[in-house]
């Protein structure tokens, strides 16, 4: 069965995208990435200095995983566009996870700057995956701006609060013509499973795995959660009922 996730020109078998942030060290990260089965992983762009070279690039390339650079830390569309252009040059990829945070406390996406940057980057030939609020109207606007995928949050980054507004996620899924990737807020495997049951095409998470007590085991749990949710979505769940409905024949 061909059940690939297609983002722009990129085809992925795994529907779990793992962020590299938060891992205690590269060896923990490596085991988590392998256990997750991911084929796409995020990196951030930061000032290079003499100490530089965290080794993350070498690791990700050795594992044969595609890089998804992000624009985390950018506050304006202009900063995000330049960071994306630098990422493309440094890493030789057209993929960009566009994220423009409004403030440090919530790390919520700034909708105006995000939309502005999305238009510019899509016009510049990027495959834009836009981190966005769980706002069905904004998700459509981002798609119209040329984004290759929209990535609504379940809850703010790093909170592990799960999917706070499942109905909004379903509304986004119902109208999107591009992949919808649940990004941020995942706390445990059932959250990842729910995202897929709601119809998301993939899940992106970092903290829930990298800061778990046992990142490798949690990565395996997330992989299973995503696969289970995908299967359940495709299988078509039974309707919810108020009263019991016997599953054994009457005597």
């Amino acid at each position, binding site marked *: 069965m061909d059940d690939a996730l297609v983002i722009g020109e990129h085809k992925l078998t795994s529907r779990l995208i793992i962020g590299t942030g938060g891992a205690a060290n590269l060896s923990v990260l490596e085991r988590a990435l392998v256990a997750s089965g991911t084929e796409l992983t*995020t990196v951030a762009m930061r*000032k*290079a200095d003499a100490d530089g070279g965290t080794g993350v690039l070498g690791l990700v390339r050795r594992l044969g995983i595609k890089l998804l650079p992000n624009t985390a830390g950018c506050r304006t569309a202009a900063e995000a566009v330049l960071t994306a252009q630098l990422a493309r040059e440094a890493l030789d990829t057209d993929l960009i*996870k566009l994220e423009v945070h409004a403030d440090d406390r919530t790390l919520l996406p700034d909708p105006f700057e995000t939309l502005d940057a999305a238009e510019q980057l899509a016009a510049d030939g990027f495959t834009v995956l836009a981190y966005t609020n769980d706002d069905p109207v904004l998700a459509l606007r981002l798609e119209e701006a040329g984004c290759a995928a929209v990535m609504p949050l379940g809850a703010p980054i790093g909170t592990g609060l799960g999917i706070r507004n499942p109905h909004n996620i379903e509304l986004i899924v119902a109208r999107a013509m591009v992949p919808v990737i649940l990004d941020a807020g995942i706390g445990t495997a059932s959250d990842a499973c729910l995202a897929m049951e709601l119809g998301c095409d993939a899940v992106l998470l970092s903290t829930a795995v990298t800061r778990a007590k046992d990142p490798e085991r949690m990565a395996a749990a997330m992989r299973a959660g995503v696969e289970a949710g995908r299967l359940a979505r495709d299988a078509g769940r039974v309707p919810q009922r108020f009263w019991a409905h016997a599953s054994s024949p009457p005597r």
Partner: protein
Amino acid sequence: MEIKVNGSWREFPDGATVSEVLDALDVTRQGVAVAVNGEVVRRGEWEASVVPKGANIDVLTAVQGG
């Protein structure tokens, strides 16, 4: 001449190229990208690209994140 590199002012000889600025920074070249005054300078142009006086240079690389 003074050039602002990743937010800090540094002294370079007049006519310094992007390549010479990178040498002075002692950064690995792989996985690095450079912008001069907000414009990306492609890798193949580092040797020939002369940095203007007072330029603002960003040198970025990928780290764990996201």
